[in-house]
């Protein structure tokens, strides 16, 4: 009788400690064991590009403002989700995200594939005053995003992520600040270098409409416009190639 066993175990304190350790270890191993082989089990798409420094800065703002509390970045593997948002999210798509921002609750819509869906102007209007474009919206206003962007930590941030396996080489790390500025100035000398370093698919625009000043709005809009555009792996999935 298992209850009798437990009854007796409770009376031997070291025996109970041992049993607790065994039980907790089983739970722990079940959660941890898959991570031992995560490098082999999560296929990183060959065409996955890391975020540019400006997009990375936007990601920091996205986290700072708590966007993830209402917006998920994970399209679940359900038919209706595919119908609304597009191909379901693959683990490999967020392989370079530290930490990932999958989210666990949606108050607003999922943003995993929002890049390119709306124009920069719409994003700026919507972040400044959501009700001006979506009257029924309950999203808060973020008017302070017009503040200048602090780029001084970007090189160090890229270097840190490089340690975690994100492919930022010495060239990218050294030019992080310059690239962040250049990505928002399509007519500047460095604009072509950004695309040379991060791929021709990277958008180089004055995201907030004003190339003269690099703002937090530039960074956040650049990040939002990059979501779902870093790899075509999910599209291949829909075409029937399989995950």
């Amino acid at each position: 009788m298992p209850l009798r066993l437990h009854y007796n175990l409770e009376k031997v304190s070291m025996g109970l400690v041992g049993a607790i350790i065994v039980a907790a270890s089983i739970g722990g191993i079940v959660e941890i064991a898959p991570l031992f082989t995560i490098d082999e089990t999560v296929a990183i798409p060959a065409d996955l590009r890391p975020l540019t420094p400006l997009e990375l800065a936007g990601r920091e703002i996205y986290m700072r403002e708590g966007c993830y509390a209402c917006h998920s970045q994970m399209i679940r593997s359900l038919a209706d989700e595919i119908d609304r948002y597009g191909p379901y999210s693959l683990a490999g798509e967020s392989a370079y995200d530290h930490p990932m921002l999958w989210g666990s609750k949606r108050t607003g819509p999922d943003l995993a594939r929002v890049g390119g869906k709306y124009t920069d102007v719409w994003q700026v209007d919507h972040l400044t005053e959501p009700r001006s474009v979506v009257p029924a919206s309950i999203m808060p206003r973020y008017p302070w995003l017009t503040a200048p962007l602090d780029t001084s930590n970007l090189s160090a941030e890229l270097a840190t992520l490089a340690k975690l396996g994100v492919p930022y080489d010495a060239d990218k790390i050294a030019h992080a600040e310059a690239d962040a500025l250049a990505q928002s100035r399509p007519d500047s000398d460095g604009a072509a270098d950004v695309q040379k370093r991060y791929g021709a698919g990277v958008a180089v625009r004055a995201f907030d409409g004003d190339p003269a000043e690099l703002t937090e709005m530039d960074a956040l809009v650049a990040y939002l416009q990059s979501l779902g555009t870093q790899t075509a792996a999910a599209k291949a999935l829909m075409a029937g190639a399989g995950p």
Partner: protein
Amino acid sequence: MAQTHEDHREVDPVTGHDTTGHDWGGIKELNTPFPKIALVFLLLAFAYSVVAWILLPAWPTGRSHTRGLLGLDQGQEALAGYRELEAGRKAWMSRFDKPDFAALSADHALLAEAMPAAARLFQDNCAACHGSNAQGGPGFPALNSGHWLWGGDPATVAETITVGINSADPNTRVSQMPSFDWMAIADRQTVAEYVASLPSGKADQSSAGAKLFADNCASCHGEGGKGGLQTGAPTLTDQSFIYGQDVETELTTLAKGRQGQMPTWAARLSPEEINLLALYVSRLPETAAGADGRSAAAVP
């Protein structure tokens, strides 16, 4: 004090259960057994998990996992479900592949099935900018006014949705209102006042503003601002506007120019979906103010 041992346990006369054997100043704790029913469900859950391990993907095995006898895969399930959704729509959706819009518009049975789906597509993709009733907003054109920047027939609307306007698509429609910052401020003020007076229909056509307009603006906005040239330049004589037709907004427009954008939807929507939306959008001027008073664009 009573340090009760297991072999001579104290039984509580009211409940019939043992006590724990401890005595806290006259208070004793009952050792009520774990409820049988909960135990039964716990064991059932264990039994189910064993069955589930056998039938479903379960245990990690290094670089793979046990696949389970049923061979289920959540991703494949979702894709199969999605293909099923697609197949359900295919009967009428396939008619939007290289469509004959005139024939489709006359097919009321088809419209009854397709237009609610189109309304949903519009809400998910277009309403954020153009408004949930297609009424537009500052910077985003209304689609229910009957005034089209590029043309309102379904084929033209489909083209606009496909390539976008000033978008990243190589074949994008291009429309740019240039900056008139080279023009003297006084002249800008004069022409702005003339343009602001156009919707009233009482604009002075012999004024200096009219002359400035004819020289600088009419090539895109049409003679007297009547528009309709389908080059992306709006009509200025009606009540609708994109950015604002008051003098102050116009002065901003003249100083900075306008390069409104619409994204390309070629990568996000299928050609059939684009054609379906095009037919829906082209009908908005009639349907949005329908006879039954309900907006066609509203979510059912």
